[in-house]
């Protein structure tokens, strides 16, 4: 089973955890990203994720491989959900097992950070007031139109959580 994958169904962390079980490992760390009810002062009603899956899978696998070689962990898995998500749903799950806890924590943190910045996944927030917007896109587009002088044209720079 590959270390990185997309799913349209609800993420089952308990099932994913069993993929990481290994008698060689004494530590396990996991991270769940949840859909929350607010962002930047807006009340959020639900979220919509979409991904460019063929490239997302490649880049996700590269991130898993980097985490394993960089931190020497034994196993690592990341699953990202796409489609419509309700408040409280798990949007992304990362789990790592390793002989000792320190590498597990570090690799877990590394994977979620890299996934957020590198994997072609987009998130649209639907607000309670009826508006909606693509996170990291709308403001960039507006700033570019306004020629905001201090705007940094980085990729995925406006990180919200």
């Amino acid at each position, binding site marked *: 089973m590959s270390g990185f994958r997309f799913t349209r169904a609800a993420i089952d962390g308990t099932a994913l955890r069993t993929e990481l079980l290994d008698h060689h490992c004494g530590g396990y760390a996991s991270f769940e990203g949840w859909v929350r009810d607010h962002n930047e002062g807006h009340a959020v009603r639900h979220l919509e994720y979409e991904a460019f899956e063929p490239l997302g899978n490649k880049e996700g696998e590269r991130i898993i491989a980097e985490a394993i070689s960089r931190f020497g962990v034994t196993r690592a898995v990341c699953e*990202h959900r796409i489609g419509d998500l309700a408040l409280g749903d798990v949007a992304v799950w990362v789990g790592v097992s390793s002989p000792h806890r320190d590498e597990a924590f570090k690799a877990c943190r590394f994977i979620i950070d890299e996934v957020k910045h590198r994997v*072609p996944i*987009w998130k649209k927030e639907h607000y309670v007031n009826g508006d909606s917007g693509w996170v990291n896109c709308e403001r960039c587009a507006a700033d570019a139109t306004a020629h905001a002088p201090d705007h940094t044209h980085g990729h995925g720079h406006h990180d919200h959580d």
Partner: protein
Amino acid sequence: MTAVLKGLVLSGGRSTRMQRDKAVLEYGGETQLDRAMRLLGEQVSEVYVSVRADQVSEPARAKYRQIVDSHDGTSPIAKGPAAGILAAQAADPQAAWLVLACDLPQLDAQTLATLIAARNTQHTATAFRSAHGGLPEPLCAIYEPASAPLLAAFVAGGRDCPRKFLLNSDTLLLDQPNPKALDNVNTPDEFKAVSAALAPAVDAREIRVQYFALLREQARCSEESVQSAAATPRELFAELTARHGFTLPQDMLKVAINTEFADWSQPLKAGDAVVFIPPVAGG
């Protein structure tokens, strides 16, 4: 007896305005130096590259026969092109030298053939009139053996501008068959302009484009096939922005070609699948 004609390509400039070594600038996949050596090699059997002592082992120059600027006291201390010409004349005083700058991306075989056909050994030199002002063009010109002592004396007198040397010599002046052939390229802006002009025209061909997120909504479709002559994804994105009114600036996006991240200047081929990647927001 007519002196044998040898070729000398000058590559020693410091390229201060270009801010990178002009000899290795590429047009259509060929460096300027390779191009100049090739064109001159088609006309003259023995061609050398003129280098400064500190350039001898640079890979772009090391593959050619070289003539190194000499500062060993056997010739007057000269700077710039005059140093290269004097070094060649010192290396073979019996030869006539066709001296060519390497930074003439629009130089064509016809221009060199015209120069060689019109060469008149009764003159000290044979050169073209500049298309900009009519002065002699010193860096696509033939210097007869008789010019060697004159140039040495000119430099010894504290001057080193080869154009002024030709102006003050018995130079046969010709009209250029192609007025742009000797326009040189000194700045990044000039390089860009000439690169665009020299780029081979691309026929429109089919490119598949997939859209995501904000771009999908603005294009009102998740994919389309476009007939485009865009040479690169950068040009394609500009075209599609004009068509669909995309609000994201290109420098905020990444691009993928055939499901792998790509450079904005990667050449596009027929049938390529292109995805423009807006700022991502996973997690």
